[in-house]
């Protein structure tokens, strides 16, 4: 990342600088147990509150963990019964000016400290660029976790273990939501068949193959492993066989592989959740009965469909409700992002409530709500959602890996060479065989086949992660006495896949020259051609009489346009065709980039410009430079300005997403949009007019004015679609694609001298004051006292000597 690049120059110093930083963090964590034991002695009254007030969020329920201490303390309370009686004058202490009450803030304090550690770690890795380019972040984080765990253990406390409920309820959802909300839908649906086959059949194959083989190993080896039944082994197989989305994301994100492979592996890791849930519950229920009847198998099948489709259904419902809610949020923009997060989280929790697949619910809700919500919410909310999701998922991921490391140190382990090594080997074999077999089958149906290189990456990218660990952790001891061994095996496999496969995948990708992601933005051309080809293919399918992929997609789109969009999108945007929405989004992005790069401030002072911005008289200032004109031309210009300003306001309101609250940022982009449109139009007019025989009123200023006000002449019919006319930015460097021609034209003409004395005239040409590079004139509201602004106001308010002509009359009658 750019941080790496920037620091690459000074390698030695940052790593030295980073060291005390890391020590500080480790020290902070080491302080935890000290603070804790201190806090317990501070106020016995406080400590005697029932232990369940400390919900023990971070610390697990393992014996010997931190929460065991208060129990000990409260037992000490009983011999001191009189201490708490108020008003007892004998043991009165001095009033404490300064005191420590750690127990009061303990839980939030510890949580914050852990999150802080995670964030500082992330920061730290980028300071040491050499390491982070070889080792993926996930590995580094696990190592950190190991170190911290070791540190805590060394201090004498027992380190916390990643509890399953915290993992599933708090750490996993942000990552999945982030993935689901920003899922590249086109590639996902195009490859859905492949992804589903990998997810469902692949996971089933892995689970049964591994479970069966491990059972065989257990039977054969005999040394204490004999009592692990087939079902227990199958359960173990189902836990370990699921590809983990967190690990996949963490590793694949860094290698920038091409979109097809990314979506295949990632999609598989998301969709196999349903299979994992079903298998896990199935085997867990029946692990202690050695017999599995046919009924159970059938019920298992049914359960799979219920779990997956039910999850999707729940997600869709919440997605639709969220989209519908967002339709009405135009007045309270600030809480829009919260709706997105809350509805998605509720979808996840509701699905988990019914033992449905929460991950699929989350993905479905994100996918369903996104197009409608994005059409309804403001740009700022969109940015907020994006950044919050990225932030949460990033922190979650970091925490998960750190906790994996800590849990490794903290947990009880039972190492059995045979079991663990064979697990490892069979895992890899199962994955490779599964991918090869399935690809052979899938390639019969794919247009773009999967090459052996692709297959290798898919197989190699099957990383296991924290989900497997948490599922293993959930097993209870009574039914699964070998739980510790399972956990050890799971952790071994996770470590192997994350460390070995994670570290080597990047050089392998380079070695095999796998196609990388193309980092280009989508252009309007591509969008148009994509839609064009979609229509074309749908038509050809219809001619062939074949109801294929395109046919159904087209039907869905039409249904969407006709019914769904009307319900879920507010106002006029419900009718906006996709192409137009795309175009607007693109324009806005570019306008914002332009503004952020300071393009507005760079107008050279020597060149005069004619420009007009969206006049919203009460909100924004307008700095413009106008040509010097004779008086009657001024009148005409004034008239036209007035007419078209009204039209502008009407017109723009229909495209403005929140008319009541004039968000200056959004106003700004409207103006940018207009400016650039006009610049382009100007170039086109120049092209036209330069070839047209010279008009009678031929002074440069007049021709400029004529051209500038041209759209009326261009569109003689008076439709309400006229954009404001005099918006020409010929010399502004920020509209690069337009107007070199016009620049030339203007540069050639003589630069008119500034005439500040002609204030009363209203429209005067003058040289624009050089604005300082930082200020964008669009964003300085309230500078309404500038002379040009006043002039404009006067111009606008002046009714003009002549009665207003009807709208649509050309500015300068042709041929006059």
């Amino acid at each position, binding site marked *: 990342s750019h941080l790496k690049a920037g620091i690459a120059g000074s390698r030695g110093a940052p790593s030295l600088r980073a060291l005390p930083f890391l020590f500080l963090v480790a020290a902070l964590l080491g302080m935890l147990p000290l603070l804790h034991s201190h806090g317990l002695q501070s106020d016995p009254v406080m400590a005697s509150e029932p232990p369940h007030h400390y919900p023990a969020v971070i610390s697990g329920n393992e014996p010997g963990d931190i929460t065991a201490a208060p129990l000990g303390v409260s037992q000490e309370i009983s011999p001191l019964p009189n201490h708490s009686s108020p008003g007892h004058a004998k043991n009165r202490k001095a009033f404490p000016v300064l005191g420590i009450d750690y127990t009061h803030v303990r839980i939030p304090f510890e949580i914050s400290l852990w999150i802080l550690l995670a964030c500082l770690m992330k920061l730290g890795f980028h300071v040491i660029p050499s390491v982070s380019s070889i080792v993926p972040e996930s590995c580094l984080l696990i190592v950190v976790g190991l170190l911290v765990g070791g540190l805590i253990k060394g201090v004498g406390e027992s380190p916390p273990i990643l509890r399953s409920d915290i993992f599933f309820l708090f750490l996993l959802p942000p990552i999945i939501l982030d993935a689901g909300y920003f899922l590249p839908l086109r590639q996902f649906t195009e490859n859905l068949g492949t992804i589903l086959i990998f997810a469902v059949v692949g996971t089933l194959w892995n689970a049964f193959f591994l479970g069966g083989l491990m059972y065989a190993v257990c039977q054969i080896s005999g040394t204490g492993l004999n009592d692990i039944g087939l079902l227990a082994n199958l359960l173990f197989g189902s836990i370990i066989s699921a590809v983990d989305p967190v690990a996949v994301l963490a590793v694949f994100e860094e290698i920038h592989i091409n979109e097809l492979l990314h979506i295949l592996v990632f999609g598989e890791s998301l969709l196999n959740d349903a299979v994992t849930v079903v298998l896990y519950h199935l085997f867990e229920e029946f692990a202690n009965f050695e017999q599995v009847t046919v009924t159970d198998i059938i019920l298992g099948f049914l359960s799979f469909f219920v779990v997956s489709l039910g999850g999707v259904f729940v997600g869709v419902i919440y997605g639709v409700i969220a989209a519908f809610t967002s339709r009405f949020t135009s007045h309270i923009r600030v809480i829009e992002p919260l709706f997105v997060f809350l509805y998605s989280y509720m979808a996840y929790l509701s699905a988990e409530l019914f033992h449905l697949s929460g991950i699929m619910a989350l993905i479905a809700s994100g996918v369903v709500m996104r197009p409608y919500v994005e059409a309804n919410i403001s740009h700022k909310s969109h940015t907020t959602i994006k950044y919050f999701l990225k932030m949460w998922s990033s922190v979650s991921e970091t925490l998960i890996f750190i906790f994996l490391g800590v849990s490794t140190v903290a947990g009880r382990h039972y190492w059995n060479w045979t079991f663990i090594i064979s697990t490892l080997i069979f895992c890899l074999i199962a994955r490779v065989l599964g991918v090869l077999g399935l690809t052979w089958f899938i390639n019969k*149906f794919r*247009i*773009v*086949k999967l090459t052996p290189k692709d297959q290798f990456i898919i197989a190699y990218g099957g990383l296991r992660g924290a989900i497997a660990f948490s599922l293993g952790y959930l097993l209870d001891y009574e039914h699964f006495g070998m739980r510790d061994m399972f956990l050890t095996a799971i952790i071994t496999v996770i470590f192997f896949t994350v460390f070995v496969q994670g570290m080597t995948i990047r050089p392998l990708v380079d070695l095999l020259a796998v196609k990388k992601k*193309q980092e*280009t933005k989508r*252009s*309007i*051309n*591509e969008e*148009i*051609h*994509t*839609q*064009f*080809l979609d*229509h*074309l*293919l*749908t*038509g*050809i*399918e*219809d*001619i*062939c*009489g*074949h109801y*294929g992929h395109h*046919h159904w997609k*087209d039907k869905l789109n*039409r249904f969407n346009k006709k019914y769904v969009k009307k319900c879920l999108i507010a106002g006029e945007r419900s*009718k*906006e*065709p996709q*192409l*137009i929405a795309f*175009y607007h989004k693109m324009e806005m992005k570019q306008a914002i980039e332009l503004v952020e790069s300071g393009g507005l401030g760079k107008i050279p002072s020597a060149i005069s410009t004619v420009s007009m911005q969206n006049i919203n008289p009460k909100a924004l200032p307008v700095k413009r430079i106008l040509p010097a004109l004779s008086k009657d031309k001024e009148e005409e210009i004034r008239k036209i300005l007035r007419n078209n300003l009204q039209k502008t306001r009407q017109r723009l309101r229909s495209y403005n997403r929140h008319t009541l609250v004039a968000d200056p940022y959004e106003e700004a982009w409207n103006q940018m949009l207009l400016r650039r*449109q006009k610049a*382009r139009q100007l170039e*086109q007019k120049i092209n036209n007019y330069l070839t047209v025989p010279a008009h009678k009123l031929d002074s440069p200023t007049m021709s400029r004015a004529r051209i500038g006000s041209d759209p009326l002449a261009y*569109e003689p019919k008076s*439709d309400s*679609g*006229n*954009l404001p006319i005099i918006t020409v930015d010929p010399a502004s460097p920020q509209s690069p*694609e337009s107007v070199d021609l016009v620049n030339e034209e203007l540069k050639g003409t003589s630069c008119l001298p500034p005439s500040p004395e002609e204030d009363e005239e209203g429209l005067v040409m003058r040289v624009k004051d050089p604005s300082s590079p930082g200020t964008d004139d669009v964003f300085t509201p309230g500078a309404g006292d500038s002379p040009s602004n006043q002039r404009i106001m006067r111009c606008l308010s002046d009714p003009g000597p002549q009665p207003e002509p009807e709208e649509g009359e050309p500015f300068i009658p042709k041929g006059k």
Partner: protein
Amino acid sequence: MGCQSSHPSAIPELDEIMLETGFSQASVVRLYDRFQALDKEQKGYLSKYDLQGIGELAVNPLGDRIINAFFKEGEDLTDFRSFIRVLAHFRPVEEGKSNETGRPEPMNSRLRKLQFAFQLYDQDSDGKISRDEMLQVLRLMVGIQVTDEQLVCIAERTIQEADQDGDGAISFEEFATSVEKLNVEQRMSLRLLK
């Protein structure tokens, strides 16, 4: 689909068709059935009217253009050979087949697919997509709600982006460049037409 499958011997010029288009015999038979099903009066030819009778094509924005692509300039009827020749463009590309020199460009190659798509844009066949032609296509795809001004902006922007030699129109090479990333071989292939 046709109610009964035709016998391969009933199809005229079967071998030449298979050679020219690269379709398998099964595909040719299937398409012949479809041809006959569309040809309601059993003329042996398809008229534009027959194709317009397909319901879904009527709602397709590009429906008319697609239909016209099957008919040669000025003609009103198309026989099976021309019909299948157009559909040959949409056969999936075979991977791994090297480009044998000396053989003519197969009909389903990337180049041919692009040429077919380009043809649909370029109605007057002057080898360029002018601004008006782009505007027409946009108007077809976008519908009635959008005003001319907006479409003009988009059309101009589109041409500006793609136009490299500055002639204000998109030539075939420029078109090919702008769809480079779109994976045309996959997009313009129908799996059933093997």
